[in-house]
């Protein structure tokens, strides 16, 4: 009897993990995501702002724990580079044409007060990394997280987040929050889907039916972590130039991204 329970538990655990992994793998991708990366001629320019992507440990890494194609690098680098073109065009911010990548094992992150983390439903921060991220955020750094969906990924995300801020809650951001008005008034927001919608026919993934605009606040009520749950803003940046990708999603994604950057540079 005891051995049957063991076998049943193992099979169940395998099925859950396989299902989760299969969902990731089942997400479609386009050739240009993995295509050759062209370095812009002004890539070496020194600027005020650099789109900085957080490289974090996850259990998805294709070529190891810190694998180049781990979940942190989803949409990389096209989303980053395409988005900053918009930032350059739409604001007075002096932005670098190429992105930067930082991790939580060095102090380089402190030179980049704005960082972007994608697919945080797969991150797994240890205590040391969580402590560094906490210090970074409390000093004035800003983290935007995106492209994670449903309750399971939420649980994984908050498991690491609770190591960063054990006693700081995640709150829903109200429309009146300055982060939605600092550049564009974004009272009318909607879920921004990834390209999965072309195949599934729906704008959400897993059980993440509704887009959530959430955050972690500091003691003065300023947003330190901007959480875009059940959305894939990174995809919208990456595929904004794709005729099939609806313009209104891309536009909102750009506005959200710009607002989050300008907010992080003003608050």
């Amino acid at each position: 009897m005891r051995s049957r329970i063991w076998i049943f538990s193992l099979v169940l655990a395998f099925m859950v993990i396989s299902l989760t992994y299969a969902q990731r793998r089942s997400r479609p991708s386009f050739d240009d995501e993995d295509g050759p990366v062209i370095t812009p001629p002004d890539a070496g320019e020194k600027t005020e702002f650099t789109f900085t992507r957080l490289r974090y440990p996850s259990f998805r890494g294709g070529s190891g724990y810190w694998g180049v194609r781990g979940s942190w690098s989803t949409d990389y680098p096209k989303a980053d580079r395409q988005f900053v073109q918009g930032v350059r065009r739409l604001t007075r911010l002096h932005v670098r044409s190429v992105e930067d990548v930082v991790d939580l094992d060095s102090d380089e992150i402190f030179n980049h007060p704005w960082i972007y983390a994608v697919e945080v439903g797969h991150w797994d921060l240890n205590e040391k990394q969580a402590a560094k991220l906490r210090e970074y955020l409390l000093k004035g750094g800003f983290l935007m997280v995106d492209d994670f969906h449903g309750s399971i990924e939420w649980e994984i995300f908050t498991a690491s987040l609770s190591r960063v801020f054990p006693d700081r809650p995640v709150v829903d951001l109200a429309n009146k929050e300055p982060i939605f008005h600092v550049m564009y008034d974004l009272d009318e927001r909607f879920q921004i889907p990834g390209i999965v919608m072309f195949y599934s026919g729906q704008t959400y993934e897993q059980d993440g039916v509704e887009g959530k605009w959430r955050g972690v606040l500091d003691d003065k009520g300023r947003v330190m972590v901007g959480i875009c749950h059940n959305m894939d803003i990174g995809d919208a940046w990456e595929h904004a130039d794709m005729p099939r990708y609806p313009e209104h999603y891309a536009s909102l994604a750009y506005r959200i991204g710009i607002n989050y950057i300008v907010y992080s540079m003003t608050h």
Partner: protein
Amino acid sequence: MFEFLFSYPSRVYEKGQFVLLGGWPIWAWALLAITVAGGLAWPYFRSRNDGEVRIQGWQSVVLWGLQAAMALLLLSLLWQPALLVATLKPQQNVVAVVVDDSKSMAIADESGGKTRAATAKEILNAGLLEQLKKQFQVRMYKVGRSLERLDKTEDIQATQTATRLSDALRGVAAESASVPLGAIVLLSDGGDNAGGIDLATLSEVRSRRIPVHTVGLGREKYDRDLEIMSVDLPARALADSRITAQVTLRQTGYAKTKVNLTLRDGTKILGQQTMVMKADGEPQTESILFNAGPAGPKALQIGVAPLENEENRANNQVTRLVNVEATKPRILYIEGEPKWEYKFIRRALEEDKTVSITSMLRTTQNKIYRQGVAEPKELENGFPDKAEELFQYQGLIIGGVEIGYFTTAQQELIRQFVDRRGGGLLFLGGRNGLSDGGWGRSGLLDLLPVSIGDRRDTFKRDRAKVELAPGGQDSLITRLVENPEANIERWKKLPEIENYQETGAAKPGAVVLAEFLVGGKRMPLLATQNYGRGRSAVLATAGTWRWQMLQPLEDKTHELFWEQLCRWLVTSSPPRVLSSTPKQVLTDETKVQIRAEVRDKTYLPVSDAQVQARVLLPDGSSEMVDMRPEPMSAGQYTATWDADKPGAYVAEIVAKRGTEELGTDLFNFRREDGVAENFGSEQNKELLEKLSAQTGGVYYSPSTASKLAKDISYSEAGITVREAKDLWNLPIVFFLILSMRATEWMLRRKWGVV
């Protein structure tokens, strides 16, 4: 000895005019002198020509010189030389004897352990008074806080709490206006509490040619004493801001001793500084840094605890007043583009309770994001273009904004903000700031404390180390840790700044507080200057934010630096009505001068205002004082008021024009009695000597005071006669003739030409 040789006192020679009474013309004397000298030279000349030379040439010259000098001296006596000197007519003149009756005269530091007052009495009673009375009518006075007539020397009590020598001299001169006052004799330690003898008094005494003879009493220097000489402290401070008290003290007998200088508010110690005493008598200045604390008037005691065997313990502490204001000055910060520096400056100042920051950030070409506005319409139309709109701020920070963004009128407004309104202006570095933003070609170039050129590639996005410049070592802006040496090291350990902007050197009058180092070169990072009624600064970077991100979370260096820089920017920005008094602590005096400067919303002086001071007395009652406009200074109003009782006072100034209220301001002041005489209690010989020298009198010590009775007659004040004092019969003349003849005779014996 002098009088034995020269027959008359030295004063006769000082005051007398040399004349020749003989009546023969001076040319006759000259002709005779040449003839005699030539006649005396002839024998020497002839003997050399005849070959009868027995002495050398120079010996002939010496002998001839002695003979000729004596002959000329005798010849001069025939012309009857004399001194013409004015002397007071006996019994027809008044001499005023003024004795210092202040508390410092009770100090027993005269020979034999006598007090200064006792010595004064002794000098007068030992014959001086009697001798004076033989020649003159003598009027005796005692001086302290006021001048009083004195009948007998026993009435000198040395109890008055202040000394007003100027008032005394003016009083004596005024009382004697209708009588021939021949001289004033002042017996004092020179410890004047009103700042010395004023020019008006000196001019009045000199115009009447009244010599003031002084007798200096008391030791010129203590053996063991420490005295607080001065304390320089701002009269106003922002709540919770850090301020510095500059304390100057002097000691004798305690060189190399460690003392603890403290600054207290009641029993609470706000700051202290350990210092090692320098050489005896050398003034020594130390700074105490302290937090002004919450708003309200504060009476701070600054001093050193009495030292072992100190002779005067009452001069170790002074009281100073600071009005800690509850106002929260506002700073307008305009930034040309989103920047990390902008965010971190705002965050640093959000913690600060003493200043508030209102900012406008150009996020796009046509969008401005406003933060910290007092009401929704504030800055709605962009950067202010009206004086009353811009001048409501006390400070202005211009980030990376190109000059072309501002209209010509706005540029002029920025200048007037500093020059006329007295605001503080800070320029930050940036790719559109300073010379890269065209400021080098603008009419506002002189607002910058550093020179900048016309280059467009001065902003570098490279990291640079920073260090404190010599000018920043005493600055409150750059004081990150209290100990000055540790502060220099703290700056060296700061994280590199993210970027920097090259500028030229500091302009004359500007001070470089911090520098950045690039490739072995040092360039100004932070420089300040005064401009008009205000001040301006340049911080040639937009990258201090790394001090926040690259240091431990609990480190507050970045916040502290920005708080201190912004407080400096606004602390001295005056309100529209600014009141003041030259002396906030009245030590043993009653008159308080109230001053007010009144300006309108555009900070132009208002000369037609009704200005009143409501003075709140220590007993809770109040008095209204009308203030009058100063004829030569637009917008300035003054009043003088008597603080009758000791204690704390508050003066509230209200300025109106018609029914329009222009503004109010207040300051506090305090009257303290029995304090002034404790300070500067050594004899102020310099003051007494100067007073005598400038009025034609003589300074005497107690041991030489006996000569005074003889000297006093030679005065040009009062009723005088001119006397001719013969010089031909002086003993010195006889001795000179004798000594010349004797010398000649001895030389002749020696050289064998007798």
